[in-house]
């Protein structure tokens, strides 16, 4: 019988593109865990986020960040914890920390994460994103779950011209195509 050896690989091969005034990078250094708050457990959950990572609970339209940990709102009573794993901060440690205060699910391999930055980033997104991306309506740390073309996307504004885009890994190539085409067509 053949002897298989499997090797972990990012879905877009660690993409790094420059298109016009946009820079498009696949973020492969971020782990994702979703956390759902049990009924009547919000106070304990918020206290746990604070004591473990000094992290505030996100509001419906704003993500929060403390050190390597970011909380992105997904729906009422549910959020995505996005973090850069380190020696002490691992998927296992996050699950363990929230064990008694939230229902957690590892999501890392279910999503593709793109970082779109550069002077043309907002213009490129305005073509495919129905959310108002004006800095006043969608400031830094603003977060929204929406659709681009036909694909569901979590969008977070990391900086004035820098966005994090999360979409389903199973349609990563289609999502990349949508964003890439938009960068291309809006290039000066």
């Amino acid at each position, binding site marked *: 019988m053949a002897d298989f050896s499997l090797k972990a690989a990012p879905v877009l091969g660690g993409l790094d593109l420059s298109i016009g005034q946009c820079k498009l990078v696949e973020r492969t250094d971020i782990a994702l865990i979703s956390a759902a708050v049990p*009924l009547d457990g919000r106070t304990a959950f918020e206290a746990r986020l604070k004591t473990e990572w000094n992290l505030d609970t996100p509001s*419906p*339209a704003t993500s929060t960040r403390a050190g390597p940990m970011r909380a992105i*709102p*997904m*729906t*009422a009573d549910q959020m995505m914890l996005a973090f850069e794993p380190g020696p002490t901060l691992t998927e296992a440690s996050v699950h363990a920390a929230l064990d008694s205060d939230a229902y957690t699910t590892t999501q890392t391999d279910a999503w593709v994460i793109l970082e779109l930055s550069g002077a043309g980033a907002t213009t490129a997104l305005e073509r495919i994103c*129905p*959310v*108002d991306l004006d800095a006043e*309506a969608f400031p830094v740390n603003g977060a*929204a*779950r*929406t*659709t681009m073309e036909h694909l*569901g996307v979590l969008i977070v504004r990391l900086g004035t011209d820098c966005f994090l885009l999360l979409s389903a890994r199973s349609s990563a190539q289609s999502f990349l195509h949508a964003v890439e085409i938009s960068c291309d067509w809006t290039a000066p």
Partner: protein
Amino acid sequence: MIINHPLLGPRDAAEFVYLGDANLINRPEGLGDNAEDAMYDHVYLRDNPAGIHRELWYHEQGDRSWLVVTRNTLTHEVTSVELARDVARSMGRSR
């Protein structure tokens, strides 16, 4: 059409799915007196007003919330948007 989500602000109607009359929240007791007729009314009979209509919308490509939207079916003017959860609670439901 823009729906002014009570938590998220103005969002494009393309993110939503329409279900129908907001009275669908009031599912009748399946084992109560006259349950058969009440369930028939609930499932099949609808008012179809030309004017103000309260209806259920689902924010499928957003935060997955159910909303009760009050809309004028003649002009598409949206006059009120509430979380269906809050509407149900205001009618005495526990959650």
